[in-house]
């Protein structure tokens, strides 16, 4: 335990130590400790209700943990307010400012930043170009496709140049085809901006395909943290094994069906 703590504190972009969250009598998160490396893509994988969003809310500072510490670049940020943590968020439903254009969505936060206020417009336009929404700059979100809205949400987050970007099941509102193409798009954006990303999902395949490492969560307890290969080859326990394999079998079954039809 002590060893893990030191490792968590000393290394990594972000480190979480012995996190515990309780709502009344319910323990939602228990002994959650992990570290994220700089520019890493870490997935938090687990079934619905296992506590993924709760971890994210604690990391962002939107929820005070019952116990535990959070370090960023070696600094204890547990008591920092959300805005001071330099962490960005892309919610499942994107939570865009529907009354504003794409441009205003992206530059809105910059207008309240004393340093960046002057360059708000330039920064926003540049970001919008880079996420490929040039033609849509003056449109309102409801005119965009789900994938485009997601890019607005990412650009809006990037505008404040966060150190870590968190994405909470960003694909679940999209159809299957869209999800596939957006996987590489998100990875591409991560490469381009050199961001550290924590990606929340309940889709095993998505996690396996995109992540540097995966953290498997069940009932608020970490079951295993490892690379996709490790998760498949050396599942830490029967839960991880069945959770991953069950999914792989389903996928293989449906592929087999697909080929049979052909």
């Amino acid at each position, binding site marked *: 335990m002590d060893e893990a703590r030191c490792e968590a504190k000393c290394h990594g972009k972000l480190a979480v130590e012995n996190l515990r969250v309780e709502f009344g009598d319910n323990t939602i998160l228990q002994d959650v400790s992990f570290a994220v490396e700089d520019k890493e893509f870490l997935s938090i994988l687990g079934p619905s209700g296992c506590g993924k969003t709760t971890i994210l809310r604690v990391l962002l500072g939107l929820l005070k943990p019952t116990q535990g510490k959070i370090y960023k670049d070696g600094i204890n940020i547990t008591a920092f307010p*959300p*805005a001071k*943590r330099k962490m*960005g*968020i892309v919610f499942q*439903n994107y939570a865009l400012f529907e009354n*504003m254009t794409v441009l205003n969505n992206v530059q809105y*936060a910059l207008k309240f930043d004393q340093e960046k206020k002057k360059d708000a417009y330039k920064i926003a336009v540049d970001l919008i170009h880079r996420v490929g929404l040039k033609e849509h700059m003056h449109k309102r979100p409801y005119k965009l496709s789900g994938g485009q809205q997601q890019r607005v949400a990412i650009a809006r987050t990037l505008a404040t140049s*966060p150190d870590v970007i968190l994405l909470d099941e960003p694909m679940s509102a999209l159809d299957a085809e869209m999800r596939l193409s957006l996987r590489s798009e998100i990875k591409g954006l991560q490469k381009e901006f050199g961001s550290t990303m924590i990606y929340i999902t309940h889709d095993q395949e998505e996690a396996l395909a995109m992540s540097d490492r995966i953290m498997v969560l069940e009932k608020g307890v970490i079951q295993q943290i490892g690379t996709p290969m490790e998760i498949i080859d050396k599942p830490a326990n029967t839960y991880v094994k069945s959770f991953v394999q069950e999914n792989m079998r389903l996928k293989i079954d449906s592929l087999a069906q697909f080929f049979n039809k052909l």
Partner: protein
Amino acid sequence: MRSDRQYALITKWLLISFFAVIVLFPLLRMLFKIAESETNIVKIMSSVNFHNALMNSLTISLTATLISVALASLLSWCVLRSHIRFKVLLTILFTLPMLIPSFSHGIGLIILFGKNGVISNVITDLLQIDVSIYGFWGIVIGSVMYSFPVAFLMVSDILRYEDSSPYEAAGVLGVPKIRQLTGISLPYLRKPMIIVAFAVFTMIITDYGVPMFVGDTHSLTLPVMMYQEVIGQGDLGKGSVIALVLLMPAVMAFVIDLLNKDRGNLSFVIKPFETAKNTLRDLFSYTFCGAVALLVLLPIGAFIVLTFLRHYPYDMAFTLENIAKTFDKGAGIYLKNSVMISLFVGGVGVVVASVTSYFTARMRGVTSKILHLISITTLAIPGLVLGLSYAIFFSPTFLYHTIAILIMVNLAHFIASPYLMMYNTFNKLNENLEDVGATLGISRIRIFLNVLLPQAKGTIAEMFMYLFVNSMMTISAVTFLYTSETKPISIMITSFEKDMNWEGAAFVSLMILAVNIVMKIGIALVKRRLLGSEKCV
């Protein structure tokens, strides 16, 4: 974001204090009044007069509620489940009675069916029978006339959001229509229909406009009795006891709301109805809707006839004399008073309702729950009761004879509905907006002003209109509180009734209707401009 939280807490307590002053304290003071004036509650309540009035109120309200809800249900069904044309026009016509005071409906009945009434004269001439609108059935008819539009709007909402898929499934399975009604419609409609009936019942049993005008000695109701005790005898204690009884629906609503845990917005995918072709049904719908529309227009037509004809039916010459006379009696000043009060109530009410619903819909906490409960409860407090409690509570203060007290009483009386409108709108907006703001360093206040409110423009317009229209026509809430200088125009109707000046009463009703129609059209235009083709809640 500590400052955010502090601001929020301060504002919440300010709002709670505000509601305490405009609702809670006056009502509590009224209860104390009963105790200190040595009014014998048991004696009053066991008196024959009280007993009769209570029974009259209950039987009249129950009968009128049944008719009103049945009529409204059939109307909504005709409008929503048929292929008739002019649906928008019909809806506008059906809701027209909501723009004039209940007193005007009383006047309308008298003008049409009273002694020497427009229609009773015709009937008497033709059939040689006397028609009398006074009494039980007159009150029932009047009550139905002003309450069915509310029921119509509520039932239409329920039918509009009814899911058609169970019916389709039942149709495929060959379940007979009558079993579909008992097996699908009734279970789905039972709870919302009870809510509608409760709202209509509360509205009718607390009204005193219609029973005061068309009631007789055998049909004295509680609100009329209360009015007579307070205005006639100056017995505030006895009035308060009756007020206590009239508060029962509000208390019930409060308790039900406390017990009702699942207040969450149910939003599932609904398959709208596809109405089949059915000529017979459409024909029936045309006839029925047309007949009701005609009945709705009848009193308004009578107002016009009375206002502009010299002496119906003997002298049918056009005249502006009635209008001139009414203005001589101060209609211009009172109209100005009313418009000013209504504008203030609209403006202040929009702010209060928006801020309150922001806290209750978008923030958790005990204070939010308290606020929600207070705001909801005001929905069922009768205007007459509120007015009396104001007269008792504020009479020692400097506010008493000012126009401010009229604004306050209207706010307290009408704030609940706009509050609920905004509460629903805020609940529909994305729940993570404030969280996104927090991570981006944008305060809650900015999100509220720059993101939430702009998306609620339509609701703001609706709220303003509701507050304005209702303040414009209310009589009950202001009846104990006005002075000769602050008098609202609607009060002229009661004075004219006393003098049997039907022409004046008709013209004042028309004026209120006209102002409210102008406001409605104005708001519709503003909404169209604000929203355009935009997506908005």
